[in-house]
Protein backbone atom coordinates (compact mmCIF):
# COMPACT_ATOMS: atom_id res chain seq x y z
CA UNK A 1 0.00 0.00 0.00
CA UNK A 2 1.37 3.37 -0.93
CA UNK A 3 1.10 5.95 1.82
CA UNK A 4 -2.24 7.63 1.21
CA UNK A 5 -2.20 11.30 1.84
CA UNK A 6 -5.70 12.35 1.11
CA UNK A 7 -8.41 12.50 3.65
CA UNK A 8 -10.45 15.52 2.87
CA UNK A 9 -11.91 15.80 -0.57
CA UNK A 10 -14.95 16.91 -2.36
CA UNK A 11 -16.63 14.10 -4.16
CA UNK A 12 -19.98 12.99 -5.24
CA UNK A 13 -21.49 9.57 -4.81
CA UNK A 14 -22.66 7.84 -7.96
CA UNK A 15 -21.01 10.34 -10.23
CA UNK A 16 -17.93 8.68 -11.68
CA UNK A 17 -15.71 11.05 -13.59
CA UNK A 18 -16.41 9.22 -16.81
CA UNK A 19 -20.20 9.19 -16.55
CA UNK A 20 -22.12 11.13 -19.10
CA UNK A 21 -23.55 14.26 -17.56
CA UNK A 22 -27.09 13.62 -16.41
CA UNK A 23 -29.66 16.37 -16.45
CA UNK A 24 -30.18 17.50 -12.84
CA UNK A 25 -33.90 16.79 -13.11
CA UNK A 26 -33.40 13.23 -14.33
CA UNK A 27 -33.78 10.75 -11.51
CA UNK A 28 -30.60 8.68 -10.96
CA UNK A 29 -32.74 6.06 -9.27
CA UNK A 30 -35.26 5.28 -12.01
CA UNK A 31 -34.45 7.53 -14.95
CA UNK A 32 -37.71 9.50 -14.79
CA UNK A 33 -37.44 13.11 -15.84
CA UNK A 34 -39.28 15.94 -14.17
CA UNK A 35 -40.03 19.58 -14.79
CA UNK A 36 -38.78 22.04 -12.16
CA UNK A 37 -42.28 22.66 -10.84
CA UNK A 38 -42.93 18.93 -10.55
CA UNK A 39 -39.87 18.44 -8.35
CA UNK A 40 -40.73 21.51 -6.31
CA UNK A 41 -44.18 20.12 -5.69
CA UNK A 42 -42.77 16.83 -4.43
CA UNK A 43 -40.12 18.44 -2.18
CA UNK A 44 -37.51 17.11 -4.57
CA UNK A 45 -38.48 13.50 -4.00
CA UNK A 46 -39.01 11.28 -7.04
CA UNK A 47 -42.65 10.14 -7.00
CA UNK A 48 -41.63 6.97 -8.86
CA UNK A 49 -38.78 5.60 -6.75
CA UNK A 50 -38.42 7.89 -3.75
CA UNK A 51 -34.97 9.17 -4.73
CA UNK A 52 -34.18 12.36 -2.83
CA UNK A 53 -32.86 15.07 -5.15
CA UNK A 54 -30.68 17.71 -3.49
CA UNK A 55 -32.76 20.44 -1.94
CA UNK A 56 -31.54 23.98 -2.21
CA UNK A 57 -31.16 25.95 1.04
CA UNK A 58 -33.99 28.37 0.31
CA UNK A 59 -36.35 25.55 -0.60
CA UNK A 60 -35.39 23.67 2.54
CA UNK A 61 -36.06 26.70 4.68
CA UNK A 62 -39.38 27.30 2.91
CA UNK A 63 -40.30 23.71 3.71
CA UNK A 64 -39.20 23.73 7.36
CA UNK A 65 -40.01 27.23 8.57
CA UNK A 66 -43.55 28.39 9.24
CA UNK A 67 -44.67 30.69 6.46
CA UNK A 68 -43.16 34.12 6.85
CA UNK A 69 -41.31 33.24 10.02
CA UNK A 70 -37.77 33.10 8.65
CA UNK A 71 -35.55 36.07 9.39
CA UNK A 72 -32.15 35.64 7.85
CA UNK A 73 -29.07 36.49 9.87
CA UNK A 74 -25.48 37.25 8.92
CA UNK A 75 -26.33 37.49 5.24
CA UNK A 76 -23.54 39.99 4.90
CA UNK A 77 -20.83 37.50 5.87
CA UNK A 78 -18.96 36.50 2.71
CA UNK A 79 -15.83 34.61 1.89
CA UNK A 80 -12.55 36.42 1.53
CA UNK A 81 -9.49 35.17 -0.29
CA UNK A 82 -6.81 35.23 2.40
CA UNK A 83 -4.28 33.16 0.43
CA UNK A 84 -4.85 34.78 -2.96
CA UNK A 85 -5.56 31.24 -4.03
CA UNK A 86 -5.20 30.38 -7.68
CA UNK A 87 -5.50 26.88 -9.08
CA UNK A 88 -6.84 26.51 -12.60
CA UNK A 89 -8.91 29.59 -11.81
CA UNK A 90 -8.74 32.20 -9.05
CA UNK A 91 -10.76 31.47 -5.91
CA UNK A 92 -12.31 34.93 -6.13
CA UNK A 93 -13.69 34.04 -9.54
CA UNK A 94 -15.10 30.74 -8.30
CA UNK A 95 -16.82 32.58 -5.47
CA UNK A 96 -18.36 35.13 -7.79
CA UNK A 97 -19.58 32.40 -10.07
CA UNK A 98 -21.09 30.46 -7.18
CA UNK A 99 -22.89 33.54 -5.98
CA UNK A 100 -24.24 34.20 -9.43
CA UNK A 101 -25.40 30.68 -10.08
CA UNK A 102 -26.94 30.06 -6.66
CA UNK A 103 -28.17 33.48 -5.63
CA UNK A 104 -26.55 32.85 -2.25
CA UNK A 105 -23.77 34.70 -0.49
CA UNK A 106 -22.29 31.51 0.90
CA UNK A 107 -22.82 27.75 1.26
CA UNK A 108 -24.90 28.12 4.40
CA UNK A 109 -27.96 30.21 5.20
CA UNK A 110 -28.77 30.94 8.84
CA UNK A 111 -31.60 32.68 10.60
CA UNK A 112 -34.43 32.73 13.07
CA UNK A 113 -37.62 30.87 12.35
CA UNK A 114 -40.47 29.02 13.89
CA UNK A 115 -41.49 25.46 13.06
CA UNK A 116 -45.03 24.45 13.88
CA UNK A 117 -45.12 27.45 16.19
CA UNK A 118 -41.91 26.59 18.03
CA UNK A 119 -39.21 29.25 17.76
CA UNK A 120 -35.89 27.86 16.61
CA UNK A 121 -32.70 28.74 14.78
CA UNK A 122 -31.91 27.31 11.36
CA UNK A 123 -28.51 26.70 9.74
CA UNK A 124 -29.03 25.19 6.31
CA UNK A 125 -26.21 24.28 3.93
CA UNK A 126 -26.44 24.36 0.14
CA UNK A 127 -24.40 21.90 -1.87
CA UNK A 128 -24.84 23.99 -4.98
CA UNK A 129 -22.52 26.66 -3.56
CA UNK A 130 -19.05 25.23 -4.21
CA UNK A 131 -20.04 21.76 -3.11
CA UNK A 132 -21.17 23.00 0.29
CA UNK A 133 -17.53 23.33 1.23
CA UNK A 134 -16.73 24.92 4.58
CA UNK A 135 -14.53 27.97 4.51
CA UNK A 136 -14.19 30.80 7.00
CA UNK A 137 -17.55 32.33 6.10
CA UNK A 138 -19.44 29.06 6.55
CA UNK A 139 -17.74 28.46 9.89
CA UNK A 140 -18.47 31.99 11.03
CA UNK A 141 -22.12 31.80 10.04
CA UNK A 142 -22.59 28.45 11.75
CA UNK A 143 -21.07 29.87 14.95
CA UNK A 144 -23.37 32.87 14.75
CA UNK A 145 -26.32 30.53 14.43
CA UNK A 146 -25.19 28.80 17.64
CA UNK A 147 -24.85 32.11 19.39
CA UNK A 148 -28.24 33.30 18.21
CA UNK A 149 -29.77 30.07 19.51
CA UNK A 150 -28.06 30.50 22.88
CA UNK A 151 -29.05 34.10 23.16
CA UNK A 152 -32.69 33.42 22.37
CA UNK A 153 -32.74 30.07 24.22
CA UNK A 154 -34.15 28.20 21.25
CA UNK A 155 -33.04 24.91 19.68
CA UNK A 156 -30.75 24.90 16.67
CA UNK A 157 -31.68 22.85 13.63
CA UNK A 158 -28.75 22.28 11.34
CA UNK A 159 -29.11 20.81 7.86
CA UNK A 160 -25.81 19.68 6.38
CA UNK A 161 -24.77 19.08 2.79
CA UNK A 162 -21.07 19.40 2.22
CA UNK A 163 -18.18 17.91 0.35
CA UNK A 164 -15.82 18.98 3.12
CA UNK A 165 -13.44 21.80 3.83
CA UNK A 166 -12.81 24.55 1.30
CA UNK A 167 -9.31 23.86 0.08
CA UNK A 168 -8.94 27.32 -1.43
CA UNK A 169 -8.70 28.76 2.08
CA UNK A 170 -5.94 26.35 3.04
CA UNK A 171 -5.36 25.82 6.73
CA UNK A 172 -8.02 28.39 7.62
CA UNK A 173 -10.67 26.04 6.26
CA UNK A 174 -9.35 23.28 8.53
CA UNK A 175 -9.64 25.67 11.48
CA UNK A 176 -13.38 25.81 10.91
CA UNK A 177 -13.53 22.32 12.43
CA UNK A 178 -12.33 23.33 15.92
CA UNK A 179 -14.10 26.66 15.57
CA UNK A 180 -17.52 25.11 15.01
CA UNK A 181 -16.84 22.41 17.61
CA UNK A 182 -16.21 25.13 20.20
CA UNK A 183 -19.46 26.81 19.23
CA UNK A 184 -21.40 23.57 19.69
CA UNK A 185 -19.74 22.99 23.07
CA UNK A 186 -20.89 26.44 24.16
CA UNK A 187 -24.36 25.49 22.96
CA UNK A 188 -24.25 22.26 24.97
CA UNK A 189 -23.05 24.11 28.06
CA UNK A 190 -25.96 26.50 27.75
CA UNK A 191 -28.36 23.57 27.64
CA UNK A 192 -29.54 24.43 24.13
CA UNK A 193 -30.41 21.41 21.99
CA UNK A 194 -29.11 20.87 18.48
CA UNK A 195 -30.78 18.65 15.91
CA UNK A 196 -28.85 17.67 12.83
CA UNK A 197 -30.33 16.68 9.50
CA UNK A 198 -27.71 15.09 7.28
CA UNK A 199 -28.56 15.55 3.62
CA UNK A 200 -26.54 14.21 0.72
CA UNK A 201 -23.60 14.46 1.01
CA UNK A 202 -22.36 15.11 4.55
CA UNK A 203 -18.67 14.37 4.46
CA UNK A 204 -15.15 15.21 5.55
CA UNK A 205 -14.69 18.38 7.59
CA UNK A 206 -18.35 19.02 8.29
CA UNK A 207 -18.93 15.44 9.43
CA UNK A 208 -15.75 15.63 11.51
CA UNK A 209 -16.97 18.70 13.37
CA UNK A 210 -20.36 20.18 14.18
CA UNK A 211 -22.49 17.76 12.18
CA UNK A 212 -21.56 14.86 14.46
CA UNK A 213 -22.29 16.64 17.72
CA UNK A 214 -26.06 17.07 17.68
CA UNK A 215 -28.36 15.73 20.39
CA UNK A 216 -30.43 14.00 17.75
CA UNK A 217 -29.17 13.18 14.28
CA UNK A 218 -31.28 12.10 11.33
CA UNK A 219 -30.29 11.42 7.75
CA UNK A 220 -32.06 11.62 4.43
CA UNK A 221 -32.44 8.35 2.53
CA UNK A 222 -29.48 7.52 0.34
CA UNK A 223 -27.34 10.36 1.63
CA UNK A 224 -23.60 9.78 1.58
CA UNK A 225 -22.31 10.27 5.14
CA UNK A 226 -18.60 9.59 5.33
CA UNK A 227 -15.42 11.23 6.48
CA UNK A 228 -13.54 9.84 3.52
CA UNK A 229 -15.61 9.27 0.42
CA UNK A 230 -15.75 5.98 -1.50
CA UNK A 231 -13.47 7.07 -4.34
CA UNK A 232 -10.60 8.05 -2.09
CA UNK A 233 -11.01 4.95 0.08
CA UNK A 234 -10.96 2.81 -3.03
CA UNK A 235 -7.94 4.56 -4.50
CA UNK A 236 -5.81 4.59 -1.39
CA UNK A 237 -6.58 1.22 0.16
CA UNK A 238 -7.64 -0.84 -2.88
CA UNK A 239 -10.30 -2.30 -0.59
CA UNK A 240 -13.46 -3.68 -2.09
CA UNK A 241 -16.22 -1.38 -0.92
CA UNK A 242 -19.54 -2.70 0.38
CA UNK A 243 -22.52 -1.91 -1.86
CA UNK A 244 -23.92 0.65 0.58
CA UNK A 245 -20.57 2.09 1.66
CA UNK A 246 -21.06 5.33 3.58
CA UNK A 247 -24.74 5.63 2.79
CA UNK A 248 -27.27 6.76 5.38
CA UNK A 249 -28.60 3.21 5.63
CA UNK A 250 -25.14 1.88 6.47
CA UNK A 251 -24.63 4.67 8.98
CA UNK A 252 -27.86 3.72 10.73
CA UNK A 253 -26.77 0.10 10.94
CA UNK A 254 -23.40 1.05 12.36
CA UNK A 255 -24.97 3.28 14.98
CA UNK A 256 -24.07 6.73 13.70
CA UNK A 257 -27.51 8.26 13.14
CA UNK A 258 -30.77 8.04 15.06
CA UNK A 259 -33.08 7.62 12.11
CA UNK A 260 -33.47 7.89 8.36
CA UNK A 261 -36.44 10.00 7.42
CA UNK A 262 -38.03 10.59 4.06
CA UNK A 263 -38.27 14.29 3.45
CA UNK A 264 -42.04 14.28 3.90
CA UNK A 265 -41.65 13.09 7.50
CA UNK A 266 -38.90 15.51 8.46
CA UNK A 267 -41.04 18.44 9.48
CA UNK A 268 -43.40 16.54 11.83
CA UNK A 269 -40.37 14.76 13.30
CA UNK A 270 -38.61 18.05 14.04
CA UNK A 271 -41.84 19.49 15.46
CA UNK A 272 -41.98 16.51 17.82
CA UNK A 273 -38.39 17.12 18.90
CA UNK A 274 -39.11 20.79 19.45
CA UNK A 275 -42.03 19.85 21.69
CA UNK A 276 -39.89 17.37 23.62
CA UNK A 277 -36.93 19.71 24.09
CA UNK A 278 -39.06 22.78 24.76
CA UNK A 279 -38.65 24.57 28.04
CA UNK A 280 -40.82 22.78 30.62
CA UNK A 281 -41.96 20.45 27.89
CA UNK A 282 -43.95 23.34 26.41
Amino acid at each position, binding site marked *: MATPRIDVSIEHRGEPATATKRHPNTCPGCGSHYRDDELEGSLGVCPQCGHHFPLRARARIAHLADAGSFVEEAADVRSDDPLGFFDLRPYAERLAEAELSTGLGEAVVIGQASLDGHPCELAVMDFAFMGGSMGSAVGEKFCRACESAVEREVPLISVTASGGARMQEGILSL*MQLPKTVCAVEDLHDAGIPMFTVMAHPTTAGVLASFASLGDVTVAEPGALIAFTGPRVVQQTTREKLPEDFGLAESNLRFGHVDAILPRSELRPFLARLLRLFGRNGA
Partner: protein
Amino acid sequence: MAREDEHRLRERLGKLTSLPLLRGARVSGEIKRLQRQLERIEARPSDEKIWRSVELARHQDRPYTLDYVQFLLEDWVELHGDRGRADDAAIVAGLGRLDGRTVALIGHQKGRDARERVQRQFGMAYPEGYHKAIRVMEIAGRHGFPLVCLVDTPGAYPGVVAEQHGQGGAIARSQAAMARLEVPTVACVIGEGGSGGAVALALADRVLMQEHSIYSVISPEGCAAILWRDGAEKQKAAAAFKPDAAHCLELGVVDGVVPEPPGGAHTDPGEAARLLREAVVDSLDDLEALSGEELRRRRREKFRAMGVYAVNA
Protein backbone atom coordinates in the same frame (compact mmCIF):
# COMPACT_ATOMS: atom_id res chain seq x y z
CA MET B 1 8.90 40.44 0.63
CA ALA B 2 11.27 40.30 3.59
CA ARG B 3 10.23 43.79 4.58
CA GLU B 4 6.57 42.97 4.54
CA ASP B 5 7.11 39.81 6.55
CA GLU B 6 9.19 41.51 9.14
CA HIS B 7 6.49 44.09 9.44
CA ARG B 8 3.86 41.40 10.05
CA LEU B 9 5.93 39.68 12.70
CA ARG B 10 6.77 42.95 14.37
CA GLU B 11 3.10 43.74 14.40
CA ARG B 12 2.52 40.36 16.09
CA LEU B 13 5.25 41.18 18.56
CA GLY B 14 3.64 44.51 19.22
CA LYS B 15 0.35 42.85 20.03
CA LEU B 16 2.04 40.33 22.23
CA THR B 17 2.43 42.46 25.28
CA SER B 18 -1.33 42.92 25.36
CA LEU B 19 -2.17 39.27 24.79
CA PRO B 20 -4.05 38.22 27.91
CA LEU B 21 -2.32 34.82 28.11
CA LEU B 22 1.13 36.26 28.47
CA ARG B 23 1.70 38.29 31.54
CA GLY B 24 4.40 39.45 33.87
CA ALA B 25 7.75 37.80 33.76
CA ARG B 26 6.80 35.30 31.12
CA VAL B 27 6.19 37.93 28.50
CA SER B 28 9.79 38.88 28.16
CA GLY B 29 10.78 35.27 27.48
CA GLU B 30 7.98 34.96 24.98
CA ILE B 31 9.07 38.07 23.14
CA LYS B 32 12.65 36.88 23.06
CA ARG B 33 11.53 33.65 21.48
CA LEU B 34 9.45 35.41 18.88
CA GLN B 35 12.32 37.75 18.17
CA ARG B 36 14.59 34.79 17.58
CA GLN B 37 11.99 33.45 15.20
CA LEU B 38 11.83 36.82 13.56
CA GLU B 39 15.54 36.70 12.97
CA ARG B 40 15.32 33.24 11.49
CA ILE B 41 12.53 34.11 9.15
CA GLU B 42 14.14 36.64 6.91
CA ALA B 43 11.67 36.38 4.12
CA ARG B 44 8.28 34.83 3.46
CA PRO B 45 9.21 31.31 2.46
CA SER B 46 9.59 30.86 -1.23
CA ASP B 47 7.71 28.11 -3.04
CA GLU B 48 10.88 26.06 -2.95
CA LYS B 49 11.24 26.57 0.78
CA ILE B 50 7.63 25.47 1.31
CA TRP B 51 8.29 22.30 -0.62
CA ARG B 52 11.47 21.73 1.35
CA SER B 53 9.35 21.82 4.55
CA VAL B 54 6.94 19.29 3.05
CA GLU B 55 9.87 16.98 2.40
CA LEU B 56 11.45 17.51 5.81
CA ALA B 57 8.12 17.08 7.60
CA ARG B 58 7.82 13.67 5.96
CA HIS B 59 11.49 12.73 6.19
CA GLN B 60 11.86 9.09 7.08
CA ASP B 61 14.42 9.86 9.78
CA ARG B 62 12.39 12.61 11.41
CA PRO B 63 11.83 12.06 15.15
CA TYR B 64 8.40 10.70 15.95
CA THR B 65 6.29 11.07 19.08
CA LEU B 66 7.91 8.23 21.03
CA ASP B 67 11.36 9.59 20.18
CA TYR B 68 10.43 12.89 21.79
CA VAL B 69 8.87 11.11 24.76
CA GLN B 70 12.28 9.62 25.50
CA PHE B 71 13.89 13.04 25.56
CA LEU B 72 11.06 14.97 27.20
CA LEU B 73 9.55 12.82 29.92
CA GLU B 74 10.58 10.92 33.00
CA ASP B 75 8.55 8.05 34.46
CA TRP B 76 6.75 7.51 31.15
CA VAL B 77 3.82 5.09 31.37
CA GLU B 78 2.13 4.30 28.10
CA LEU B 79 -1.60 3.68 28.36
CA HIS B 80 -3.26 1.37 25.89
CA GLY B 81 -6.68 0.77 24.46
CA ASP B 82 -10.00 2.46 23.91
CA ARG B 83 -11.84 0.16 26.38
CA GLY B 84 -14.14 -0.85 23.58
CA ARG B 85 -12.54 -2.54 20.66
CA ALA B 86 -8.85 -2.06 20.08
CA ASP B 87 -5.54 -0.50 20.88
CA ASP B 88 -4.76 1.65 17.86
CA ALA B 89 -1.00 1.89 17.51
CA ALA B 90 -1.24 4.94 15.24
CA ILE B 91 -1.86 7.02 18.36
CA VAL B 92 0.18 6.66 21.52
CA ALA B 93 -0.89 8.08 24.85
CA GLY B 94 0.41 8.04 28.35
CA LEU B 95 1.62 9.86 31.41
CA GLY B 96 4.98 11.16 32.37
CA ARG B 97 6.82 13.89 34.21
CA LEU B 98 7.88 16.99 32.35
CA ASP B 99 10.02 19.47 34.19
CA GLY B 100 8.66 18.29 37.55
CA ARG B 101 4.96 18.13 36.70
CA THR B 102 2.92 15.15 35.61
CA VAL B 103 1.47 15.55 32.14
CA ALA B 104 -0.64 13.44 29.83
CA LEU B 105 0.91 13.12 26.41
CA ILE B 106 -0.93 12.02 23.29
CA GLY B 107 0.58 11.84 19.84
CA HIS B 108 0.32 10.24 16.45
CA GLN B 109 2.99 7.64 15.91
CA LYS B 110 4.45 6.60 12.58
CA GLY B 111 6.49 3.46 12.16
CA ARG B 112 10.20 3.48 11.61
CA ASP B 113 10.61 0.30 9.58
CA ALA B 114 8.30 -1.50 7.17
CA ARG B 115 6.78 -3.79 9.78
CA GLU B 116 6.13 -1.02 12.25
CA ARG B 117 4.73 1.22 9.55
CA VAL B 118 2.08 -1.33 8.78
CA GLN B 119 1.42 -1.97 12.47
CA ARG B 120 0.93 1.76 13.05
CA GLN B 121 -0.92 2.32 9.77
CA PHE B 122 1.61 4.98 8.74
CA GLY B 123 0.38 7.12 11.63
CA MET B 124 -3.17 7.18 10.33
CA ALA B 125 -5.55 6.49 13.20
CA TYR B 126 -8.82 4.63 13.22
CA PRO B 127 -11.69 5.95 15.34
CA GLU B 128 -10.34 3.63 18.03
CA GLY B 129 -7.22 5.76 18.21
CA TYR B 130 -9.24 8.88 18.86
CA HIS B 131 -11.31 7.06 21.47
CA LYS B 132 -8.10 6.12 23.26
CA ALA B 133 -7.05 9.76 23.10
CA ILE B 134 -10.39 10.89 24.55
CA ARG B 135 -10.04 8.39 27.38
CA VAL B 136 -6.62 9.73 28.31
CA MET B 137 -7.85 13.33 28.00
CA GLU B 138 -10.49 12.46 30.57
CA ILE B 139 -7.86 11.09 32.93
CA ALA B 140 -5.92 14.32 32.50
CA GLY B 141 -9.03 16.34 33.23
CA ARG B 142 -9.94 14.31 36.30
CA HIS B 143 -6.52 14.63 37.87
CA GLY B 144 -5.55 18.09 36.67
CA PHE B 145 -2.68 16.92 34.49
CA PRO B 146 -1.76 19.32 31.67
CA LEU B 147 -2.13 17.77 28.24
CA VAL B 148 0.58 17.78 25.59
CA CYS B 149 -0.33 16.62 22.08
CA LEU B 150 2.18 15.88 19.35
CA VAL B 151 0.63 15.95 15.92
CA ASP B 152 2.15 13.90 13.12
CA THR B 153 -0.20 12.21 10.70
CA PRO B 154 -0.92 12.23 6.97
CA GLY B 155 -4.56 12.14 8.07
CA ALA B 156 -7.09 9.80 9.63
CA TYR B 157 -7.14 6.31 8.12
CA PRO B 158 -9.20 6.33 4.91
CA GLY B 159 -10.59 2.79 5.06
CA VAL B 160 -13.89 0.96 4.96
CA VAL B 161 -13.81 -0.22 8.56
CA ALA B 162 -12.63 3.16 9.81
CA GLU B 163 -15.72 4.68 8.20
CA GLN B 164 -17.99 2.00 9.57
CA HIS B 165 -16.66 2.67 13.05
CA GLY B 166 -17.40 6.36 12.75
CA GLN B 167 -14.26 8.20 11.71
CA GLY B 168 -15.97 11.58 11.33
CA GLY B 169 -17.74 11.40 14.66
CA ALA B 170 -14.59 10.25 16.45
CA ILE B 171 -12.60 13.22 15.16
CA ALA B 172 -15.40 15.59 16.14
CA ARG B 173 -15.65 14.11 19.62
CA SER B 174 -11.90 14.23 20.17
CA GLN B 175 -11.97 17.95 19.44
CA ALA B 176 -15.02 18.35 21.67
CA ALA B 177 -13.20 16.59 24.52
CA MET B 178 -10.31 19.04 24.14
CA ALA B 179 -12.75 21.95 24.08
CA ARG B 180 -14.15 20.78 27.43
CA LEU B 181 -10.89 20.27 29.32
CA GLU B 182 -10.13 22.50 32.26
CA VAL B 183 -6.42 21.80 32.27
CA PRO B 184 -3.66 23.54 30.30
CA THR B 185 -3.27 22.09 26.82
CA VAL B 186 -0.41 22.45 24.37
CA ALA B 187 -0.25 20.89 20.93
CA CYS B 188 2.74 20.89 18.62
CA VAL B 189 2.82 19.74 15.02
CA ILE B 190 6.06 17.76 14.79
CA GLY B 191 5.79 16.50 11.22
CA GLU B 192 2.68 16.23 9.11
CA GLY B 193 -0.41 17.93 10.45
CA GLY B 194 -2.79 16.36 8.00
CA SER B 195 -6.37 17.52 8.01
CA GLY B 196 -9.08 16.31 10.42
CA GLY B 197 -6.89 13.53 11.68
CA ALA B 198 -4.44 16.15 12.91
CA VAL B 199 -6.82 18.77 14.25
CA ALA B 200 -8.50 16.07 16.36
CA LEU B 201 -5.51 16.44 18.70
CA ALA B 202 -4.88 20.13 18.22
CA LEU B 203 -7.71 22.08 19.81
CA ALA B 204 -5.29 23.40 22.40
CA ASP B 205 -4.62 26.54 24.42
CA ARG B 206 -1.32 26.83 22.60
CA VAL B 207 -0.72 25.34 19.22
CA LEU B 208 2.89 25.24 18.09
CA MET B 209 4.59 24.04 14.94
CA GLN B 210 8.10 22.87 14.49
CA GLU B 211 9.93 24.97 11.95
CA HIS B 212 9.80 22.37 9.20
CA SER B 213 6.48 20.76 9.99
CA ILE B 214 3.40 21.29 7.84
CA TYR B 215 -0.22 21.79 8.78
CA SER B 216 -2.81 21.55 6.08
CA VAL B 217 -6.38 20.81 5.14
CA ILE B 218 -5.31 18.34 2.47
CA SER B 219 -2.11 16.84 1.20
CA PRO B 220 -0.35 18.58 -1.70
CA GLU B 221 -0.96 15.45 -3.80
CA GLY B 222 -4.66 15.37 -2.93
CA CYS B 223 -5.12 19.06 -3.58
CA ALA B 224 -3.32 18.81 -6.91
CA ALA B 225 -5.40 15.83 -7.96
CA ILE B 226 -8.63 17.62 -7.21
CA LEU B 227 -7.97 21.21 -8.22
CA TRP B 228 -5.34 20.73 -10.92
CA ARG B 229 -6.68 17.30 -11.89
CA ASP B 230 -3.06 16.15 -11.84
CA GLY B 231 -1.33 14.79 -8.73
CA ALA B 232 2.04 15.74 -10.19
CA GLU B 233 1.25 19.40 -9.61
CA LYS B 234 1.80 18.85 -5.89
CA GLN B 235 4.49 21.51 -5.56
CA LYS B 236 2.23 24.04 -7.21
CA ALA B 237 -0.56 23.03 -4.85
CA ALA B 238 1.64 23.33 -1.77
CA ALA B 239 2.78 26.77 -2.90
CA ALA B 240 -0.85 27.76 -3.25
CA PHE B 241 -2.21 26.54 0.07
CA LYS B 242 0.92 27.25 2.12
CA PRO B 243 1.12 24.53 4.79
CA ASP B 244 4.43 25.75 6.21
CA ALA B 245 4.92 27.04 9.75
CA ALA B 246 5.67 30.62 8.82
CA HIS B 247 2.44 31.01 6.92
CA CYS B 248 0.40 29.25 9.62
CA LEU B 249 1.87 31.66 12.15
CA GLU B 250 1.08 34.59 9.93
CA LEU B 251 -2.53 33.45 9.55
CA GLY B 252 -2.90 33.22 13.34
CA VAL B 253 -3.52 29.49 13.16
CA VAL B 254 -0.61 28.64 15.42
CA ASP B 255 0.75 30.51 18.39
CA GLY B 256 4.41 29.91 17.86
CA VAL B 257 7.06 28.21 15.80
CA VAL B 258 9.55 25.90 17.47
CA PRO B 259 12.98 26.16 15.88
CA GLU B 260 14.70 23.03 14.62
CA PRO B 261 18.39 22.33 14.29
CA PRO B 262 19.80 23.53 10.97
CA GLY B 263 18.92 20.93 8.33
CA GLY B 264 15.86 19.71 10.18
CA ALA B 265 14.94 17.82 13.34
CA HIS B 266 16.33 14.53 12.09
CA THR B 267 19.87 15.88 11.88
CA ASP B 268 20.01 16.31 15.67
CA PRO B 269 17.02 14.76 17.46
CA GLY B 270 18.42 15.62 20.88
CA GLU B 271 18.67 19.30 20.04
CA ALA B 272 15.25 19.22 18.37
CA ALA B 273 13.83 17.72 21.57
CA ARG B 274 15.55 20.34 23.70
CA LEU B 275 14.00 23.13 21.64
CA LEU B 276 10.60 21.44 21.74
CA ARG B 277 10.82 20.91 25.46
CA GLU B 278 11.67 24.54 26.06
CA ALA B 279 8.67 25.72 24.03
CA VAL B 280 6.25 23.31 25.68
CA VAL B 281 7.45 24.05 29.20
CA ASP B 282 7.31 27.80 28.61
CA SER B 283 3.76 27.45 27.33
CA LEU B 284 2.70 25.35 30.31
CA ASP B 285 4.31 27.79 32.72
CA ASP B 286 2.23 30.56 31.19
CA LEU B 287 -1.00 28.59 31.14
CA GLU B 288 -0.73 27.27 34.66
CA ALA B 289 -1.37 30.77 35.96
CA LEU B 290 -4.98 30.54 34.78
CA SER B 291 -7.96 28.75 36.30
CA GLY B 292 -9.45 25.78 34.48
CA GLU B 293 -12.58 27.68 33.64
CA GLU B 294 -10.60 30.61 32.34
CA LEU B 295 -8.43 28.32 30.21
CA ARG B 296 -11.47 26.77 28.63
CA ARG B 297 -13.13 30.09 27.97
CA ARG B 298 -10.04 31.56 26.32
CA ARG B 299 -9.38 28.39 24.34
CA ARG B 300 -12.82 28.52 22.82
CA GLU B 301 -12.55 32.23 22.17
CA LYS B 302 -9.27 31.72 20.36
CA PHE B 303 -10.73 29.19 17.95
CA ARG B 304 -13.96 31.15 17.65
CA ALA B 305 -11.91 33.97 16.17
CA MET B 306 -10.17 31.86 13.52
CA GLY B 307 -10.80 32.46 9.89
CA VAL B 308 -10.78 35.36 7.47
CA TYR B 309 -14.02 36.54 5.96
CA ALA B 310 -15.52 39.68 4.52
CA VAL B 311 -18.57 41.58 5.64
CA ASN B 312 -20.47 43.04 2.73
CA ALA B 313 -21.48 46.60 3.26
